[in-house]
């Protein structure tokens, strides 16, 4: 079970925060750049033949003897896409018998929680699994009744991208961007430990008019390695083996490298209007959603 029932009730109080209005399809609860019929006043416009006379402001006509239409903010459905990294490196943190504690499990649960928030806000949810390419895709759908379907899709996803070449996150994101025909929000949940040029993938999403939020999920032993001694390191994704002597100095060098890599990602995201958060897979889901995401403005009450 991805989400505890008690936790689901706590998600009812949250909505997804967006930086700007998005164009969607169908009426929904999210503001649209289009002018529509809602209770939120936006502007006046002179009447033209063919306009809906029900929107004529008669009080203004009484004062000015001219016909004006009252314009209201249109509320449309927005499609929020969750792209889960299904590369093998996302298995890190779990055990051989259970995926609990792995980065992928953390990504699954986070996607499930955020999709519930989205569906609860009358928006639509799409889910994609990215690995070598776009491995699986659940087209957009809305309504709270589809939450179970979405969760089932997410839960069935498995990390699978093994091979000498590893994952190709850039190609997979480009594939996903091709499926996003209208503007919307996209959450990318990945560890970004890939040799492919992930920048090009994020750029493709931006080109598809997506407000992108990149959630980098790393396991505790990746954030703060406790390895020491003569070891044979095996790359989970490529299977490459390397015999090394891990010393304190090597660990310090690793941490410096990680910090530089994180800084590189953050700088790129900042330059391309992409929200970026680095999360530990050891954090509880409640801690991530109710504290970290709220604090960083991804969700709001």
């Amino acid at each position, binding site marked *: 079970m991805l989400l505890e029932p008690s936790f689901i009730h706590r998600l009812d109080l949250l909505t997804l925060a967006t930086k700007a209005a998005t164009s969607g399809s169908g009426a929904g609860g999210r503001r649209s750049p289009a002018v529509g019929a809602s209770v939120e006043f936006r502007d006046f416009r002179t009447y033209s033949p063919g306009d809906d006379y029900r929107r004529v402001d008669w009080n203004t006509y009484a004062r000015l003897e001219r016909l004006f239409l009252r314009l209201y903010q249109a509320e449309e459905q927005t499609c929020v896409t969750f792209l889960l990294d299904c590369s093998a*490196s*996302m*298995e*890190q*943190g779990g055990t051989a018998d259970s995926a609990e504690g792995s*980065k992928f499990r953390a990504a699954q649960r986070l996607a499930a929680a955020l999709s519930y928030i989205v569906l609860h806000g009358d928006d639509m949810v799409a889910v994609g699994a990215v690995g070598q390419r776009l491995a699986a895709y659940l087209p957009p759908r809305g309504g709270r009744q589809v939450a179970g379907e979405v969760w089932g899709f997410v839960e069935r996803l498995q990390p699978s991208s093994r091979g000498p070449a*590893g994952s190709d996150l850039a190609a997979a994101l480009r594939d996903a961007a091709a499926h996003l025909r209208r503007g919307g929000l996209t959450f990318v949940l990945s*560890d970004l*430990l*890939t*040799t492919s040029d992930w920048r090009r993938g994020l750029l493709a999403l931006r080109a598809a008019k997506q407000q992108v939020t990149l959630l980098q999920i*790393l*396991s505790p*032993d*990746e954030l703060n390695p406790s*390895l020491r*001694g*003569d*070891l*044979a*390191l*095996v*790359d*989970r*994704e*490529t299977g*490459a*083996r*390397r*015999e*090394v*002597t*891990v*010393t*304190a*100095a*090597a*660990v310090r*060098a*690793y941490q410096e*490298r*990680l910090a530089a*890599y994180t800084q590189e990602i953050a700088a790129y995201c900042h330059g391309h209007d992409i929200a970026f958060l680095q999360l530990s897979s050891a954090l509880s889901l409640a801690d991530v959603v109710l504290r970290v995401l709220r604090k960083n403005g991804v969700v709001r009450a």
Partner: protein
Amino acid sequence: MGFALPIGFATALLALPILALYVLKLRRREVVVGSMLLWGDAVRDLRANAPWQRLRPNLLLFLQLAALAGLAVALARPYVLHASAVRGDLVVVLDASLMMRATDAAGYPDRFAAAKARVSGLIDVLGPGDVMSIVRAAHTPRVVIAQSGDREALRRALDAVAPSYEALDAAPALSLASSLARGGHDGSVRIITGAGTVLPDLTAVRTLRPTVSRMGGTARDLAIVAFAAGDDGTGTLSALARIANYGPRRESTDVELTVDGRLLDVRSRDVPPGGQSDVLWPTLPTGSRVLQVHLTLHDDLAADNTAWAAPVRAAPRRVVLVTAENVFLRTALALDPSVRLTTLTPAAYAAGAASGTLGSPDLTILDGERPAALPEGNLLLINPPVGEWPGLVSGPAVRVAGAATIAQDSAGILRYVQAAAIHVAAARVVTASAWLRPALLAGAQPLLLAGERASRRMAVLTFDLHESDLPLQPDLPIMVANLLTWLAPNTSLPATLAARPGDLIPVAPVAGARRVEVVRPDGLHVALAPPFPLGPFSDTGQPGLYTLRQTRAGGAVQEDPFAVNLFPASPNEGSSGQPSAASGQPSARSPEAPATGPGVPVDTTGLFAGLALAFLCTEWWVASRGR
């Protein structure tokens, strides 16, 4: 280099497991990481093994092998054969004479410091099982430490040795060293002396492979080699100083004369190398007691630039002669102008002694008479009447046959006397105490006895002068003069005293002296008596002005200064020395040539153990730097 324990090299086999650690495949714990993306750079330089185990150049491997090599060599107990002469039983004769105070030893305060450094170097290379003795050579040799292999003990003993002001008498020192060296096995002698020192023939110790190390080089040395002051007989005091230049170049100096603490005169002298110059002061203040002459030149040996003189003052002798009549004796006594002779008959002597008008004469001569009360002080008994005398029981006279012979003459009372020319007709049979020893015999009959007990000196002629041919011989005034000199000395010190450091100075206490002491130049008082009789004064180690203080019974104090100077006894002695052909390098043709041999093993285990430790520390540092 040799190795005392070659089996220690077996330790080097440990190199094999060390190499194996780098060659054989290491079982490593497999750890799955999400990605090697971030690990690649971090561990690239720290890989110890290639997967296929090829041996690669590795600093840690080199350091470990180097440490193991040092350890293996150290365990093999390495040694090097030192080329020095330290082998077996070494006796070092360390010259501590005056000349070793010369400051011409490069890098050292003086020659003696350089010599001690040389000995210290010998101690350093002393091999296991070897022993060393150190003999301090000066006026008299002294064993500083004998046959010790304890380096610390040798160093402590060496540190305690100080140079003297004495002249070197090398022969006794070599004899002592030879005795010490022959006491051990494989003995050898190393003589460490100054440049230019003339050593005795070393042929006698050739079997001990004598070697000579000479300290110093070409010293500038202007020295006072003689300084004397005295009365010329007219009451005029004069002084003469002789200056010698032992240095390699001409020297100019001022000569200062100080009389009783006041600077009296300054003369300039220019002395060529090897030359001498005299300075005469013909007229000095009458009554001057202490004279000092000093050279102002700063040369390499300052000790011999100052000399002292104390003119001997001869006091008159008061002699009381108690006799019925003895013209021969009176005539002989009158020959000495210092004698104030009082001739008394026994009755007059008894009256004078009773009235106390006789005072305390320096000598009382009882010629065939015995007063009721014997006088205090020194006595000369001639033909003592039958009865008991101090140390003597006199009997009747017996006939004596044959010429006289000298039994012993420790007191010098028969000096220049021809005993064989003396014939005695009759002499008294005497029974003398042990301290009264016969000096002149006729057969078994003692003719002259002399001895000293407490502070009294006494001589006994057992015959009447008229019963002998002595008055007809020139030996009578000679013997009387000798007896006066010994029984009534007018100076407590030898009239021709020219003492040098280390000399023994005979002291004749004045009559009635109760306490005798000597004040050294450094102010220290050295008591000589009581008890009497006193021996010679021997504490003359330092040059300068000494004072003999004698306290009489009434508390009167007589002070007689005397000087101890660094004058050479012979022309070859006393200079700091001109360098020999090669200073410090003895000739190879002479017995002084250094002994050659296979050398002694000097243990170098510590060196290699230290290297091994250094490599280990470096390896630890290199390894920990990467952790």
